């Protein structure tokens, strides 16, 4: 019965095919999910590059190269 319910939900309105992607009909949810990963990866690389240009790694190194008293519980 549970398996039946799951299959019913698979073809609910939310999951009905709307777009043609890679030769098959896809839902809105699937359409965004396909490209979200690569877009976030590209965004991440751009942000890293921006951070390096702003000099953030030096701030990280300054903090990480000395014993962090707060981190070890001395305050």
């Amino acid at each position, binding site marked *: 019965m549970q398996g039946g319910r799951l299959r019913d939900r698979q073809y609910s309105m939310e999951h009905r095919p709307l777009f043609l992607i890679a030769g098959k009909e896809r839902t809105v949810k699937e359409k965004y999910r396909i490209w979200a990963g690569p877009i976030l990866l590209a965004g991440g690389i751009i942000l890293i590059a921006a951070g390096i240009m702003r000099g953030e790694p030096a701030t990280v190194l300054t903090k990480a190269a000395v014993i962090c008293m707060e981190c070890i519980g*001395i305050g």
Partner: protein
Amino acid sequence: MARGKTTGKTRLFVQALWTAVTNGYAYGFVSGKIYTGRMKTFCVPGLSCYSCPGALGSCPVGALQAVLDSRSFAFSCYIFGILMVFGSVLGRFICGWLCPFGLVQDLMHRIPLGKKWRRLPGDRWLRLVKYGILIIFVIVLPSIIVNVAGIGRPWFCQYICPSGTLMGGIPLMTVNPGLRGAAGALFSWKIMILCLILFLSVKMPRPFCRYLCPLGAVYGIFNPVAFYRLNVDREKCISCGKCREVCPMDIKVWETPNSPECIRCGACTESCPVDALEKKVAFCKRKCYHNDSALACYHDSKEK
């Protein structure tokens, strides 16, 4: 070998190896000092304190607070970028396979002490606490509460993080008498939190990852869209619930295979009696199952 054992042993080996590699500065443990080289400019993916004597890289959560509580930056492009790259590629696979504190919790859970718990009362709401910790203790408080010099504090590291106590505080104080003498009420508080987490880890799997870890909260947001995913073959799945029984995060895998809570340990895929679960990497050309996953949709065009 019994089903579910192969991945477990492989994962334990990978976790131990990764912990040894990223915390491989052996001289630090002997001398009571930390590594100060340029490799600490880079972040390791897991929760690994940069004040651990062996740490060769920085903790992303600590580094994020370090940038946010500095005078120079109100936003950290560098650390958010690193989190986005790690998150979009691996998601919470990092929690399951590459986090040193995850390894500690997994080892503690192997101690056979009384009846094990599946979850704490109020589990559903407790899981939201980690998002609150991320927003309040990691982002907001370090940014807005600053001293006269405009410098804030790493609130999460200072008051919550048990990884810093275990991997940084205890080893450093063991070999450094000067630091040992400086320990006070804050250290007692952090030891208490650590003991509580370790006790809970014995009784239930991954309590810190489930309820408190801000890094897990970040990677969890990426889990549904990460390159590394889990697919369910709806035609094969009989919804028997075996996957949930073995899941350390207590997830209904057949309903939400890419749940933000899933740490990708692989126990469910090993335990599935009908092989309806499959691990996948995005945009690879291998054949995969038909289901409502985006990646499966992308792949199955290759079958034609």
